[in-house]
């Protein structure tokens, strides 16, 4: 269309829309959190493989690492990991259901339920890990 042909080199809005956090709803935040935890967990997968590889270097190397990992800073990291796993897993379950056309009209309630469950799991893990 004539109008469409006129704006080849117009400056366009700066930010890609999906990186713009203004005015977003709960659903988008859940999506963003799912992405971030997902990427974090992939990173952790490789970290985990690297750590487990020390098992190949014999008992001293491994048992030394185990001592290290019992420090509070690593335990906090463990807790973060559990929370991330719980969120990605439970929100993922919601997305799997809703995204397959099941319980579609309940998507908001399911998100709230997932949030509550994540909180509970994290709480239990906190007691278990830090106590």
């Amino acid at each position, binding site marked *: 269309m004539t109008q469409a042909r006129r704006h080849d080199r117009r400056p366009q*809005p700066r930010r890609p829309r999906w990186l713009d956090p203004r005015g977003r709803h709960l659903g988008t935040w859940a999506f963003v959190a799912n992405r971030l935890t997902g990427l974090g967990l992939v990173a952790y997968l490789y970290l985990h493989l690297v750590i487990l590889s020390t098992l190949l270097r014999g008992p001293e190397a491994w048992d030394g690492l185990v001592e290290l990992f019992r420090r509070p800073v690593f335990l906090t990291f463990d807790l973060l990991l559990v929370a991330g796993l719980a969120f990605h897993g439970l929100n993922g379950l919601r997305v799997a259901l809703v995204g397959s*056309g099941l319980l*579609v009209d309940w*998507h908001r309630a399911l998100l709230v339920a997932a949030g509550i469950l994540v909180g509970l799991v994290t709480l239990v893990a906190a007691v278990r890990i830090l106590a």
Partner: protein
Amino acid sequence: MNAPRTVLLKVFRSGPDDKAPRYDQFRLTAGPRTTVLDALLAVRRRQDPSLAVRHSCLHGSCGTCGMRVNGREVLACVTRLKELGDPVVVEPLAGAPVAGDLVVDMEHVYQRLEPVGRPLVRASERAGKNDGKAGPGPVLEGLERFEDCIECGLCLSARPVAGDPRFLGPVALAAAERVLEEPRGADPRAVLGLVDDAHGAWRCHTAFECSAVCPARVDPGAAIMRLRGRLLRDRLPRLVGRYHREGRS
């Protein structure tokens, strides 16, 4: 709180000679009923006649004045300034080429809609023919029906996947769901094939942002989910054997 107040508008500008987008600031007095569109038209009349804005019906029915106000996709004609903070930042919709200032090219909306095919309005809002002789059929149920879509493109701007133009997008997917629900002569197989695509129904991130911004309450997000359910019910039997009997599709 209904007294007129002064509002600062920060308006996205994109002229032919601009190297980068800029934001122009305008101050104006707003009453309790003043909408964002009223304010923009007042700016054009009294402060800067070069400001380009699309508008037509002024009551949220035509879908031309979609824009982002404080980051959020809205129809400017039904968004009152008193509901917003100060300043008010006004930008064009995302995911569409800017033709100038707040005007975006809407061709992409219709390129998406066209292959799906949809009648704009029903012949009648009631089932059955309404010629004044027969009694009325029941009013068709369901508040969220795609016939109410005003093609404003807010959903295409709000979707988390706005970065990728290949995504068929909420508007066309919701239209497809409606066509499958009530084909009215359309070919359901072709529509199913069109939306069963990595950039079709499966590209959606289930964020429901499209539904949240939809000014016509069409709820395209839920429609996409129902569409996926439909695809699964259609495709799953093939996975468990019918596929082999029928041969490759």
